[in-house]
């Protein structure tokens, strides 16, 4: 196990390097750079733009820029954002917790709903509830998040519900007691978390249902039934553990989204997360900020994969890493 872990971690290094190389070059390949927005400002002379270009190192060739970035990264320096003029870590640092809270809440909602509903659907196949849940899943899959969020917000305003329509905290947040502060954040969390959560509930539920159906129809379940085991034991002890394996792999992938943010939902609900800022950074070509975001996402993805592999070993005694 230990050697396996070490080997996996060692493989991550070239992998992350390759990812960084690719993202850096793809971003640079698309036309223009950060200064383009300034070029169209009548008040800014070309002198100033040239000055900024050399200050930001944008006039050097791409390989040089990449190596410079990498060298700084190895020294623990993620660089400075062009637009904020402060270290990238500080720009990200102010928002990372918010993104984490939202993604975690969404994940809890998604998995908390999807697993039991999926099992229920599978064990009550073609019942009215199963059909209802399937239709619900398809609707959930087809409504775009931002639109769903707008509908919810519209309903809140239309029926004057006592829920906020934007942001993460109330204006009076700083004058509240800790309990009130927590409740305040939860109130604000409701809409974005429900929107993000239900979006993945739909697909996860379908996955769970399919996996369960596969397992339930297999021979050893029939054997177990023939042995006269209780239905509960069959479902939860034998079937579920086997059906769960692919879900664990999915879970690993989902971990990567914990820190990558959800730009559109964040924009509509005013949640101060990373997604919106990263989108602006990528579109505005604030390279180092965008790179930091992408590397964080990739890192979470590979780590998530590793975690899911380890979880698989825990769940399934047949899997051993030696």
């Amino acid at each position: 196990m230990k050697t396996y872990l070490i080997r996996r971690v060692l493989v991550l290094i070239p992998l992350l390097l390759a990812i960084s190389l690719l993202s850096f070059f793809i971003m640079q390949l698309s036309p223009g750079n950060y200064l383009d927005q300034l070029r169209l400002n009548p008040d800014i002379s070309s002198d100033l733009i040239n000055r900024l270009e050399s200050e930001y190192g944008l006039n050097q060739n791409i390989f040089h820029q990449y190596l410079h970035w990498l060298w700084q990264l190895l020294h623990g320096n993620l660089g400075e954002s062009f637009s904020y003029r402060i270290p990238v870590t500080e720009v990200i640092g102010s928002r990372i917790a918010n993104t984490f809270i939202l993604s975690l809440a969404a994940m809890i909602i998604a998995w908390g709903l999807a697993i039991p509903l999926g099992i229920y659907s599978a064990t009550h196949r073609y019942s009215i509830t199963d059909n209802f849940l399937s239709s619900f899943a398809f609707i959930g899959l087809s409504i775009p998040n931002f639109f769903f969020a707008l509908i919810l917000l519209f309903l809140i305003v239309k029926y004057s519900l006592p829920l906020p329509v934007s942001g993460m905290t109330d204006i009076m947040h700083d004058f509240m007691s800790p309990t009130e502060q927590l409740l305040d954040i939860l109130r604000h969390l409701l809409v974005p978390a429900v929107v993000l959560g239900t979006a993945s509930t739909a697909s996860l539920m379908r996955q769970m249902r399919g996996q369960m159906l596969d397992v339930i129809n297999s021979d050893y379940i029939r054997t177990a039934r023939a042995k006269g085991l209780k239905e509960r034991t069959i479902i939860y002890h034998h079937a579920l553990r086997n059906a769960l394996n692919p879900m664990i792999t999915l879970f690993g992938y989902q971990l990567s989204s914990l820190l990558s943010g959800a730009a559109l939902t964040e924009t509509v609900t005013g949640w101060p997360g990373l997604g919106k800022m990263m989108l602006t950074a990528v579109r505005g070509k604030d390279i180092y900020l965008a790179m930091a975001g992408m590397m964080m996402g990739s890192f979470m993805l590979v780590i998530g994969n590793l975690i899911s592999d380890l979880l698989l070993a825990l769940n399934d005694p047949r899997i051993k890493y030696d």
Partner: protein
Amino acid sequence: MKKRIFIYLILFMLIFATLAAAQNISLQDPWYSKKEQGKYGGTLISTLTGDPKTFNILIAKETSSTDVLAGYIFEGLLTRNGVTTELEPELAKEWSISEDGKVYTLKLRRGVQWSDGVEFTADDVIFTFDLISDQQIPTSSRDVMLIDAEFPEYKKLDKYTVQFKLAKSFAPFLNNLTAPILPKHKLYSIWQAGDFNKVWGINTEPAEIVGTGPFKLKEYKPGERIIMVKNNLYWRKDPAGKTLPYLENWVRIIADNQETKSLLFEKGQTHFLAVRGIDYKRFASKADQNDFTLVNAGPNFGTDFLIFNLNPRNPKLKEQPWKLEWFNNIHFRKAIAYAFDKQTMISQAMAGQGTPQWSPVSSPNKVYLNQDVKKYPFNLEKARQELKAAKFYWDDSGKLYDQNDRRVEFNILTYAENNTIISLMNIIASDLRNLGMKINASPIEFNKLVSKLDNEWDFDTIIIGLTGGVEPHSGSNVWPSNGHLHMWNPRQKNPATEWEARIDELFRLGAAATSIKQRQKYYDEFQEIIAEKLPVIYTVVPNSIYAVRNNLKNTDITAYGGVIWNIYELYLED
């Protein structure tokens, strides 16, 4: 013994110095509001598009940063009145210009204090201009100050007087005195250490940011809101002589999305909202029952226009040299101008809430707009006559050819990020197709569009927008033929046409003239030339519409100043 005396002496001097410093700085030149007496207190809540990127106003380049700071936390020596758009004294009490237009003398208001209680003096002004002229600081304020590549001389005459000496008479300089003044006592040592470009980023402790404006920064929550509180040391007074502003707090919720802003306003959380044309009817029907008023402040400062590529350096001309011939033909350009259906643009792209634009000066510019330039009302018959005059002809199926039997076909590009401008493009393209032209209209990515305009020069026509201001000389990168934003043919060594040469001269004359009357004459002629020669054809300008709660009083809403330009005298009724 000697030593002891010496210590006493030092002590005495110290006490004296502290006493002198603690001496009450009394405001000797206040300004009095002429609006009705308001009520003190209350929290104004509004929205802000996008997060500020920095609180360092000198290096801030985005409106999302300057919207937070300019006029509210930092102030200039002069400012523009939100209604008349004329220059008025702000931190300066008065100014005078010498006969030859070269020497500007400004008397500062005495006793104005920075929000931390230190007195504002000529030293702060000199310090600010030291910063602006520092080559190491990337600020756009420097470029506009340069006169023939030279920075004006500036000096302090006494504690409350500063003087600027220009190399030659240059009227736009007065507009530059609206540059925000920064506190020397806070920033001097940082600047000396070479760290000015890093100071006052968004991670700064709010109390560190000190200005003279009506508000102080209290808290910034990235992605959520900015909270500002009243500056109790502000120099503007209410009619009764008490310190303004009336408002105790000002919360600005960061909302990037127009739908969210509308919902916040409808839920009663914000006090005013900039309404899009397409939402006008919905809000108009709700105004009475929800206790707010819709104010139409007329066209805003933005300008959207179509540019012809008149650049002989266009790399595509090797294959298609005839395109430049068409575009260079004034009849062809006029034909296209007559095919701009501005009424349809207003009704379809702006839901009826727009104004046609004819002149290169922004429509709400009350000082310099020339109303009498040549106009090209929509008329396809006239467009056809112009095309005939240029020897174009139509075949039986109505397709348009030039005199050398080439089918008239060209591209229109615009940027994909703006829905309104895409609608404008489609309306224009469809009318040009009615004239028998083959038009390929496509939206592309903004960065790509900029590189085409800036250095690739391989487009046919582009529809793009620029924001305008009051001072026409701020267009000196756009209109004179050597400008890098002279988009139809940038950075010319010598003006390609006589009329471009005349515009170059008019900009020189307009800058050198001292009286506004004289300047207006030059800029009027410039507007006539552009409207006559049509290197760019203007489209329509959306109107600024604001929904304002009825309990927000003393407002004077205009397209230039918006709702909050005079925030210091606004107040909230219960």
